[in-house]
């Protein structure tokens, strides 16, 4: 069926085609230093400009080094930054590739339709593109109200547009970062401790004596300071306990690896809780003073013995006991890591609750080597009028569902975009900023339905990501090395701010996100919300309120402020009121009970793979951030494609060898667009396969990443929704192998 919104794969038609001539891949990916001396330039001959990284959400501060010719040569961590401690991760070091990538979006594009009905992108001027976006925003506001203009956002670029949308009168926004990532953690820890786990997480790994990782693969997720601290913990002789069906890098460095059967983590957690309580290993003083609902919990886990859990998790009872005792022995200096991407099986808030309860029983909260009290600095708002009050927001879109959600749920915004789902509040147009929706969201069918139903889509990105193929207007954003941005003020052990400033002029016709948002705002008569010519004025004003200045920050990049909220840890026997309804840590959650959910975590069995199918587990590689870095020439070099990990027993059964190419098919008949190479490895269980997320791009404008590896999202068609907060559980999908290219396979748009 031909849809109104034809996915545009080509860059432009006719004159002014966007694609530059491309050289052969992988060799001399780009010509930055060609025909020049390969002599290294000494640091003294370069000028460093402060920045903080935008390759992932950790936002490490560093210095962009520019040589005398004005060329960006390298990016080095800022020694005074608690996120990087002077050492960027491979993505931060390779962030230079984001700037030099010759596939970047170069100028604004507008979708046009030919007389024969086919669609293409026309190169446009900024005025045309901005007029078009602003015009549509006016039209939507008049026809349906500004609330009907939705926003999908992520990171800094998204935040400029959040500001624009709020000034315009819409709070109909959602980020994949909530319902597709860490939402269950936020809700679970808030309902237990009355406090959120921030970003960066307030885990005191540096000083811990026992680090417990439940499916969290630090070292493969390259959350910089955490990786650094895990290394320090190894030096300090801390015990690491890793629960993972796969021998992750972290598992390989652990004293105990629990190779759990996937989807059974809650049973293990409940058995640990059982051991702590019934062997009386829990921190009695802490539990008595600070917690609520211990008796109910004790009764609840009475029969949840390690022997009970053995039958479910396949972890030996003795190993469950030994690891529980190890944690108790190290308590309170234990980090039960809350994880980050935790939308797995639809009961994720409950699993996170079990982790929070375990934390409380160990007294491993507010103590050295457990979870500390982080503190961020409040950056004053640049003077502007109050935002208008929207008639309805993302909350109203959810209606009575997912009452504990603290942010908009992507799936709900998508459904509200399709009239047939009958949502009371309808979304009619989208702005998408800094998130590649087709490769970030499961359920491609719903995404395409929604993209087809809305009247208008504008996308801002630095790269021709798959989402731009759905756009009516594409706005090319300058990379983080070419722009001013918000001050970074993330919470940490000590409050800091970090400056991002341009080290070079924006390449091509790309423009900073703040500029694009402002230009649209001006066209909508919202000048008072954008009362500056350059974003550096905003930053300078804010810095002056904080007792520093842009001038000083340009020299230091990162500035530390004294803590004001008190010490990092809870004192012995210190009275403390938790921000929950009982003022205590709620082992038994009244908040969940009031909303009709289980007040204590319950283990529910989940479907298992049918014969010949294997559970799809996905994760991260240290050199890539989701799908956004796979075309970066430096990072592509480190890992050009993903592969599918298969246990040797299963590989034997299928006659698969290392490097063989297969197509994957899931339980609903979805097939990958591209073949993926098999990696036969003992590191994975026989009932599961593993893939690194972010590959299998289906857009030829990404000249390196196109067709490399396979996309795990295409295999995720079964979504297990978390009733508590709307999280989209994605680990209930099973795949099998196709050794031949499937016949009549139409190329599915990613």
């Amino acid at each position: 069926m031909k849809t109104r919104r034809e996915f545009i794969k080509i860059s432009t038609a006719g004159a002014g085609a966007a694609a530059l001539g491309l050289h052969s891949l992988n060799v001399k990916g780009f010509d930055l230093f060609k025909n020049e001396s390969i002599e290294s330039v000494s640091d003294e001959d370069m000028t460093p400009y402060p920045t903080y990284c935008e390759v992932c959400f950790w936002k490490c501060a560093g210095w962009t080094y520019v040589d005398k010719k004005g060329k960006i040569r390298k990016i080095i961590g800022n020694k005074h930054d608690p996120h990087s401690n002077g050492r960027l991760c491979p993505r931060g070091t390779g962030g230079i590739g984001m700037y030099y990538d010759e596939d970047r979006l170069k100028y604004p594009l507008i979708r046009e339709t030919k007389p024969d009905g086919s669609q293409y992108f026309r190169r446009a001027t900024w005025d045309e593109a901005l007029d078009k976006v602003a015009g549509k925003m006016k039209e939507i506001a008049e026809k349906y109200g500004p609330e009907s203009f939705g926003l999908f956002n992520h990171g800094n670029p998204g935040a400029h547009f959040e500001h624009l949308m709020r000034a315009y009168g819409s709070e109909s926004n959602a980020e994949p970062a909530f319902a597709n990532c860490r939402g269950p953690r936020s809700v679970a820890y808030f309902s237990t401790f009355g406090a959120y786990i921030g970003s960066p997480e307030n885990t005191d790994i540096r000083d811990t004596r026992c680090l417990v990782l439940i499916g969290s693969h630090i070292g493969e997720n390259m959350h910089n300071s955490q990786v650094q601290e895990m290394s320090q913990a190894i030096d300090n002789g801390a015990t690491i306990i890793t629960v993972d069906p796969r021998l992750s890098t972290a598992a390989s460095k652990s004293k105990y690896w629990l190779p759990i059967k996937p989807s059974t983590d809650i049973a293990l957690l409940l058995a640990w809780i059982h051991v702590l309580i019934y062997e009386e290993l829990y921190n009695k003083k802490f539990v008595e003073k600070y917690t609520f609902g211990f008796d109910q919990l004790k009764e609840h886990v009475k029969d949840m013995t390690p022997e009970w859990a053995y039958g479910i998790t396949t972890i030996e009872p003795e190993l469950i006991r030994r690891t529980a005792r190890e944690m108790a022995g190290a308590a309170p200096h234990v980090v039960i890591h809350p994880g980050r991407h935790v939308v797995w099986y639809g009961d994720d808030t409950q699993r996170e609750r079990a982790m929070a309860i375990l934390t409380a029983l160990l007294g491993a909260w507010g103590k050295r080597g457990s979870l500390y009290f982080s503190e961020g600095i409040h950056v004053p708002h640049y003077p502007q009028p109050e935002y208008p009050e929207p008639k309805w927001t993302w909350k109203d879109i959810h209606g009575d569902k997912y009452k504990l959600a603290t942010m908009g749920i992507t799936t709900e915004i998508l459904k509200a975009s399709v009239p047939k789902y009958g949502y009371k509040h309808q979304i009619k147009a989208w702005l998408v900023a800094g998130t590649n929706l087709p490769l970030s969201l499961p359920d491609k069918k719903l995404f395409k339905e929604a993209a087809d139903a809305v009247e208008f889509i504008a996308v801002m990105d630095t790269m021709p990501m798959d989402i731009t193929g759905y756009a009516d207007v594409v706005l090319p954003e300058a990379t983080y090395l070419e722009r001013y941005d918000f001050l970074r003020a993330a919470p940490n052990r000590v409050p800091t701010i970090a400056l991002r400033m341009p080290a070079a002029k924006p390449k091509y016709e790309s423009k900073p996100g703040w500029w694009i948002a402002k230009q649209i705002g001006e066209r909508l008569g919202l000048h008072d919300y954008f009362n500056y010519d350059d974003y550096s004025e905003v930053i300078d004003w804010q810095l002056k309120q904080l007792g520093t200045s842009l001038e000083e920050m340009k020299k230091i990049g990162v500035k530390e402020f004294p803590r004001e909220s008190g010490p990092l840890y809870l004192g012995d026997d210190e009275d403390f009121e938790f921000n929950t309804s009982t003022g205590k840590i709620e082992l038994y959650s009244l908040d969940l009970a009031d909303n009709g959910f289980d007040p204590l975590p319950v283990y529910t069995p989940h479907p298992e793979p049918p014969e010949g199918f294997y559970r799809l587990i996905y994760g991260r590689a240290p050199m890539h951030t989701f799908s956004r870095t796979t075309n970066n020439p430096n990072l592509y070099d480190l890992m050009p494609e993903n592969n599918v990990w298969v246990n040797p027993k299963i590989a034997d059964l299928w006659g698969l060898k290392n490097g063989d190419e297969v197509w994957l098919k899931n339980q609903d008949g979805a097939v990958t667009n591209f073949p993926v190479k098999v990696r036969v490895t003992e590191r994975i269980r026989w009932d599961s396969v593993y893939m690194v997320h972010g590959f299998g791009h289906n857009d030829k404008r990404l000249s390196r990443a196109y067709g490399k590896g396979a996309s795990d999202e295409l295999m995720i068609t079964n979504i297990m929704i978390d009733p508590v907060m709307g999280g989209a559980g994605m680990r209930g999908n099973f795949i099998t192998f196709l050794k031949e290219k499937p016949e009549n396979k139409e190329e599915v748009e990613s």
Partner: protein
Amino acid sequence: MRYAMAIDTAKCVGCGDCVVACQTENNVPHGYCRDWIVENVSGSYPNVQIELRSERCNHCDNAPCVRCCPTGSSHIAEGGIVLVTPEECIGCGACIESCPYDARYVHPDFGYVDKCTFCKHRVDKGQNPACVDVCPTHCLHFGDLDDPNSDVSKALKNRDWKVLAPEAGTKPQLYFLI
């Protein structure tokens, strides 16, 4: 003076930061590298182990690449650093064949052989090689073996270590802490 490096396999996560940092520091062309990551998996599920390590030129005391170089381009500089003088290299590739560590490549734009220099331009100024200074896990230790207080000497003092391909008799100066 004897420069050497110790790589702590207990801490290396194989992230490849050393590879990118070398690339940007030394203008290594894309598709090539002077250092790289090796992952060794042993055992069978669930009794599996992995060793991850960052590798590069071993700056051998008894370097076959130096012995076999017909022009004298490959040579040993101060502190035992094995270097190539580009102007003297004819790109014959004998050194590449002789190296048991596969640490050399022919530069695609210039035709001479390129390899790890221990970032001599930095080391001469008292800095560490770029890979050492970037490593998020602090698993790389560099310095002078003749100085007991150097980072590398201290790292080797209290730990077991191994070298790669000892049977080749090259007397390599990369030590892998195990």
